[in-house]
């Protein structure tokens, strides 16, 4: 039984990885990360100190800040159409007439998509740290590097989960794209200043704003990243600054590292359940 299960998982992993390579997702995500990194290296290393970080440390911080906005979109694009497209083009009708369980398929696709998104990022961070050390002679901030990787991976998993859940539950591909965009925009817009704007316009209770901020995986990740680097009002914004003072940087990091992953896991479990229980075609 276990041999069959691993065979089924292995076959789908290989099949989907080949599909991802063909669709050039790996090249695209790696290229995008590398392009951003190159831009920040070029600009960042020439400028003066920002947020107390200099050189490669600041480049990493700035890069992560931009990635926090970009990673959700890349993850949603990579996962948001995978199920409904396979359902439409007849892949499922053929594939599930083979000895493959739905749970194996869902797990395999999730693992491949997550790996393809997160591994180039880890490689890029490692490369930047190595460059900073060898070329610019700067000490590597392993703690910051590790924290950045954990937070980015957690955020990626969140949006892999959201994307797969949408892909399972929304059969119409055009509608699915619309929902994916709404999720991304919601995550990106409900950051510090927009939340304060909401509070002022709709006279929302500050507690509501702090809860909204913490619930938004992008904001949770952002606060965790910045608080570990420089927990100042200018860097974090009023909501983040309040929370870091209230909760402390350790708790904020824990929140930023675990909450996005937990939210993504909840969406993933829900999507998996829908996928297993509902009609396949």
């Amino acid at each position: 039984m276990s041999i069959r299960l691993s065979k089924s998982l292995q076959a789908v992993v290989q099949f989907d990885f080949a599909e991802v390579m063909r669709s050039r997702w790996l090249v695209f995500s790696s290229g995008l990360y590398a392009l951003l990194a190159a831009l920040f290296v070029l600009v960042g290393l020439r400028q003066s100190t920002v947020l107390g970080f200099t050189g490669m440390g600041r480049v990493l911080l700035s890069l992560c800040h931009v990635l926090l906005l970009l990673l959700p979109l890349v993850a949603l694009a990579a996962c948001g159409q995978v199920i409904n497209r396979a359902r439409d083009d007849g892949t499922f009708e053929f594939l599930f007439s083979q000895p493959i369980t739905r749970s194996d398929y869902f797990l395999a696709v999730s693992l491949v998509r997550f790996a393809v998104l997160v591994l180039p990022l880890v490689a890029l961070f490692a490369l930047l740290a190595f460059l900073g050390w060898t070329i610019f002679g700067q000490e590597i901030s392993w703690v910051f590097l590790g924290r950045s990787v954990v937070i980015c991976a957690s955020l990626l998993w969140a949006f892999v989960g959201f994307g797969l859940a949408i892909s399972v539950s929304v059969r119409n591909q055009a509608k699915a794209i619309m929902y994916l965009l709404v999720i991304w925009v919601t995550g990106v817009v409900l950051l510090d200043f927009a939340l304060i704007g909401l509070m002022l316009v709709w006279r929302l209770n500050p507690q509501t704003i702090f809860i909204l901020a913490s619930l938004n995986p992008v904001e949770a990740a952002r606060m965790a990243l910045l608080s570990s680097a420089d927990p100042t009002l200018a860097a974090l914004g009023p909501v983040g600054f309040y929370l870091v003072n209230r909760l402390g940087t350790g708790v904020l990091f824990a929140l930023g590292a675990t909450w996005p992953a937990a939210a993504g896991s909840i969406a993933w479990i829900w999507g998996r359940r829908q996928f297993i229980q509902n009609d396949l075609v």
Partner: protein
Amino acid sequence: MQVELRKVTKRFGSVLALRNVSLVVPSGQKVALVGPNGSGKSTLIRAIMGMVAVEGEVLLNGRAPFHDPLRLANQIAYVPQNPPSLSASTSELVHTVSLLRGLKESAVQVIASSLNLNLGEVWNRPVRELSGGTKEKLMVALAVAAKPSLLILDEPTASLDTASRLRFFELFEQFTVDVTVILCSHRFEEVRQLARRVVVLEAGQIAWEGEASDFLDGQALVAMGVQGVEDSQERLPTGPTASATACKDLGCEV
């Protein structure tokens, strides 16, 4: 493999695709599902393969498919009417299926060549770029090479030319001696060549079932009261010709 359906009903929203269908296909029997478009044939085979959730029971060898899905799926092979539009290459597809079913890729190649398909020529080409006939042959080769106990065929020769169709019928004779076969077809020739029993579906219900020879003689159509059958049989005393004419009312191609 014995296939049994007990009071199977399937709804898609307000549309009732299958209504209380009960059917037993004993092990080794060859059954054709015949009926017009939308009569529930595809839904029925998807229900058997566990792709759609239904009310009622589907039993394979007396057990629910979810009892041991991998073991059962390993004994089932399926040739879809519309082969998947995969960007994967032929080699990837053959490799994946071989890995899943524990087959030798050479076994697939042997079957394919008996259908006049040289897999080497299309080995690195994406499946979606193959012609309809080539895709169909590939699907048949993968299904037959799996040596299934239950073979489900949905319009298997629709895209094949005459010579390939004849080769397919020969291959079918050779490889399906003890295999249970469920065939969905609109083609008279396929029913004649591949089935011993016919089940006619209409509006999600079994409208008639019996021997393939009776169906081909037009008895099913008479029994169902298909318009014009009685007249045509009076005019044309030979059964097959009469049924051929009236069979078109069931969406069959003669």
